[in-house]
């Protein structure tokens, strides 16, 4: 598996990268490369040029603030998972990370890259949605931010980027009393997600949740949040029956993907069971 030929540049600054990107129509950006290099080898992508972001040091910082963290686009997943404050304040991200790829893939792969790829079965994307991440985008001399939900919409490229570069991912810290988890039903042979859910609940008064964030991937056409189910949990109370009905209603609103690994019906069934069990567990905690 040898990629088609392409030209290559390794700019040292963001400005230089942006200027190369505007000159080279259709150039691909190389961050961790754990999706792009596969696409190049399988020739699902054959860009004329690859712009390697690995020498842009300003993209490699993890910056903690009072309420959240800014994760530079070139921060490796492994480095992120080793960060003490991330471990303490973003347990959902760390739990998800441990289930994503393998240690060698995480040594190179980046969170920003995983969001740009927005694989239908993506682990990191589900966590970013549930944690209400924001994606920082640089281009045309200015910076803008998009919520993860507006960035990952199922259309390519993610965020509708045109000649722009994702520079960072912003994540608010989880509340101290939040209960969260990432669960995945994997295909037995290949390990890909049949259905996954990243869930973060903040317990409130009278058995209802103060806040609920539920993101699913693997089963639906693209990773997304389930706002109706989130609303049902904040409205509470959630007797088992109500919960089942609310889950069914949320599933009715999704389009499920089917392929030779699992049919759409099977994915829907497994996602329903996964949501029901995981929510009951978190609510009873």
């Amino acid at each position, binding site marked *: *598996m*040898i*990629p*088609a*030929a*392409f*030209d*290559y*540049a*390794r700019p040292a600054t963001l400005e230089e990268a942006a200027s*190369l990107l505007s000159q*080279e129509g259709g150039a691909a950006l*190389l961050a961790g*490369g*754990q999706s792009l*290099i*596969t696409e*190049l*080898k*399988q020739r699902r992508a054959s860009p004329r*040029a*690859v712009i*390697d972001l*690995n020498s842009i040091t300003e993209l490699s910082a993890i910056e903690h603030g009072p309420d959240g963290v800014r994760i530079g686009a070139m921060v490796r997943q*492994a480095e992120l998972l*080793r960060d003490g404050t991330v471990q303490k304040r973003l347990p959902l991200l760390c739990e998800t990370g*441990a289930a994503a*790829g*393998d*240690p*060698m*893939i995480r*040594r*190179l792969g980046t969170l920003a890259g995983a969001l740009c790829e927005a694989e239908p079965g993506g682990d990191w994307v589900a966590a970013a949605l549930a944690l209400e991440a924001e994606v920082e985008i640089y281009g045309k001399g200015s910076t803008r931010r998009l919520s993860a939900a507006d960035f990952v919409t199922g259309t390519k490229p993610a965020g509708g980027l045109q000649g722009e570069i994702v520079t960072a991912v912003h994540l608010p810290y989880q509340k101290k009393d939040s209960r969260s988890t990432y669960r995945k039903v994997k295909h037995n042979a290949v390990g890909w997600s049949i259905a996954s859910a990243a869930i973060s609940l903040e317990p409130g008064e009278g058995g209802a949740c103060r806040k609920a964030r539920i993101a699913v991937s693997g089963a639906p056409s693209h990773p997304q949040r389930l706002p109706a189910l989130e609303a049902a949990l904040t409205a509470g109370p959630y007797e088992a029956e109500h919960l089942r009905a609310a889950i069914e209603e949320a599933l009715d609103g999704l389009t499920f993907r089917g392929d030779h690994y699992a049919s759409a019906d099977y994915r829907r069934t497994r996602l329903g069971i996964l949501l029901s069990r995981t929510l009951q567990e978190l609510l009873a905690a």
Partner: protein
Amino acid sequence: MKSELDIMLTVDGAEERTTVEPRMLLIQALREKLGVKGPHIGCESGRCGACTVLVNGEAVKSCMMLAAQADGAKITTAAGLAAEDGTLHPLQQAFHEHHALQCGYCTPGMLCAAMDLLKTNPKPNENDVRQALRGNLCRCTGYQHIVDAVLSAAGTLGSGASAVKGAAE
């Protein structure tokens, strides 16, 4: 924009210079340009881990990296773990003693992934070892002997974990 690059790699202590096309993967540069046959090519799609090497001390799959990206890096392959006089590294010795290989195809990758684990976590438990080797497939052993070997090496190295660190860097 370049369509050919001169790169420099330090492979198992030896400085090597070569010219590559940007599309050349690190594993291809190592094996085909530099004749370094430690890391194997298995699936070439980032799953099997047979091509794992240490790049600046960190285990990565060398089929998932362009040679151009490794320019200037220090590469350690399984062949570079032993001492110059051929004395096996304690991890290699443990593989030998625990019969942690049959056909040996996955072994270079297993060794490099395990080196990285022992550097970051000198006292792993069985689950840590299995998680660390998750990206390395073995079709012969059923993994048990490999896990035993890594745990045994961690015990042998004990407080001498610095020896692992030294070799990995």
